[in-house]
């Protein structure tokens, strides 16, 4: 049990049991209130992520969003999933994203071109996906309540047992999918390299352009230059 959850348990210790019997929406427990508040913060951060005009700020708001999700997992007693969420998404995916931004263009201040004409289509898709997910989750777990006093339902042991006893096939299928993506990425990068090498062999003067042709903007301005572009 983590500190946050312990603190919540401490705060609501005597009332948890009675609330667990009635499950009234009008008498929420401390954990439920915390869950809703963190959910609101996460939602707000997610909104800012997609609406802000400052690229790096968007990435940093994404950190808040993903961290908020991890806290929600914690409050649902899924401790293992929460740490994996922090490890993979906050620790690696966002760092990779920031690395990519800094390597290409990450001006300080607003980017005038950080907007898309597809904004309404994107909004429609997002709302549809959210509605579908909410509907599925509500339909699946309508009357299920997590017993906070009992053994943690999402402990490492419980997660591992259910993953490798009931869900082995999807797990393995996913790992094969990831392996395929990995091999594909290597093949693609090697092909680009080979193409660049042959192009460089024919025209040695323009060696940098074919290599960056597939990803526009990468080699156009070096990172410090684009950063200066933003500050001036």
């Amino acid at each position: 049990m983590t500190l946050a959850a312990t603190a919540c348990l401490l705060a609501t210790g005597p009332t948890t049991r009675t609330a667990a019997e009635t499950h009234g929406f009008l008498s929420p427990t401390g954990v439920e209130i915390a869950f809703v508040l963190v959910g609101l913060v996460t939602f707000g951060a997610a909104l800012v992520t997609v609406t802000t005009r400052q690229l790096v700020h968007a990435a940093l708001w994404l950190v808040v969003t993903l961290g908020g999700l991890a806290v929600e997992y914690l409050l649902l007693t899924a401790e293992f999933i929460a740490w994996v969420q922090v490890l993979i998404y906050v620790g690696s995916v966002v760092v990779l994203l920031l690395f990519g931004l800094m390597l290409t263009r990450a001006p300080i201040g607003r980017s005038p071109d950080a907007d898309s004409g597809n904004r309404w289509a994107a909004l429609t898709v997002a709302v549809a996906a959210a509605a579908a997910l909410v509907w599925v989750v509500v339909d699946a777990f309508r009357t299920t309540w997590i017993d906070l006093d009992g053994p943690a339902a999402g402990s490492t042991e419980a997660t591992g047992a259910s993953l490798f006893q009931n869900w082995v096939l999807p797990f393995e299928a996913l790992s094969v999918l990831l392996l395929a993506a990995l091999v594909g990425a290597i093949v693609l990068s090697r092909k680009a390299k080979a193409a660049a090498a042959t192009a460089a062999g024919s025209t040695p003067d323009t060696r940098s352009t074919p290599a960056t042709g597939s990803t526009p903007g990468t080699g156009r301005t070096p990172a410090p230059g684009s950063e200066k572009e933003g500050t001036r």
Partner: protein
Amino acid sequence: MNDVLDVILRLLIVFVVFLTFPLIIGQTEHKVMAHMQGRLGPMYAGGFHGWAQLIADGVKFAQKEDVVPAGADRRIFQLAPAVALLPYLLVLLAIPIGPDEGAVGQVIDAGVFFVLAVMGVGVLGSLMAGWASANKFSLLGGLRTAAQLLAYELPMLLTAASVAMAAGTVSIPGILDAFEWWWLPWQIVGAIVFFVAGLAELQRPPFDMPVADSEIIFGAYTEYTGLRFALFLLAEYAGIVVLCGLTTVLFLGGWHGPWGADGLGWVWTLLKTAVLAFIVIWLRVTYPRLREDQLQKLSWTLLVPLSLAQIALTGIVKVVIQ
């Protein structure tokens, strides 16, 4: 009420450790480096062998003006030191120093995952600092930090997974309870890989390409002054404490020792941590800085295969002894 008091007391102790241990390591570094190079190091502050040098440094840092460059992204620039420092405070909570319930800040079920996840977040602080400073050298430093983290996170995770496999649990006290002396030769490759990858994640020499003071003027921290700069330095030394403590509890058996196991376990933990911290300082004085490509090569062609081999070995031995 007793529980609340207990929580507050634990937090307080961890906080005190967090504030004092990095200073002790910093002072040791001053002295050890000096003696290895035939100097005396700080001798005046505080009287006895310059013991108060770092306190004097702290006072000096606090007096300096807190400058934010005009072109910088103000809020992120100011937030970065906190993001760099706080994760190490959280990690310290999960490192046990003794066998009983009272000797750890907080028992965490998936402790190994917790510490590695939270340590990875600390690097975001350097990235934010590097970007928000509006300085070429800072941005270069930030880029190098990110590249280094992406390369060294993997071997660190894999070797930690190897220990977790050996113990059959991801809880740190659980791993220590399962520890036997012969794990030391069994997991030695993993231990070395973990320690080296951890050094790289902390950007300590010889892996200090991202801060390379003689080339890119301290990288992401170029524009920082006063207390904020001091916080980054504190984060580095707190990182040493955390890394040495983690290597101790995961690979060197923490409180287990040849004798005096009952009651004196915490002495063993501290002793092993101190020896590892000495090695960190020693490496700084001994090795030249690795170039960026050498750095990447070391990780991808040496450490990752070694850690995979360690996992295979762990798996085989585990199956055989069952």
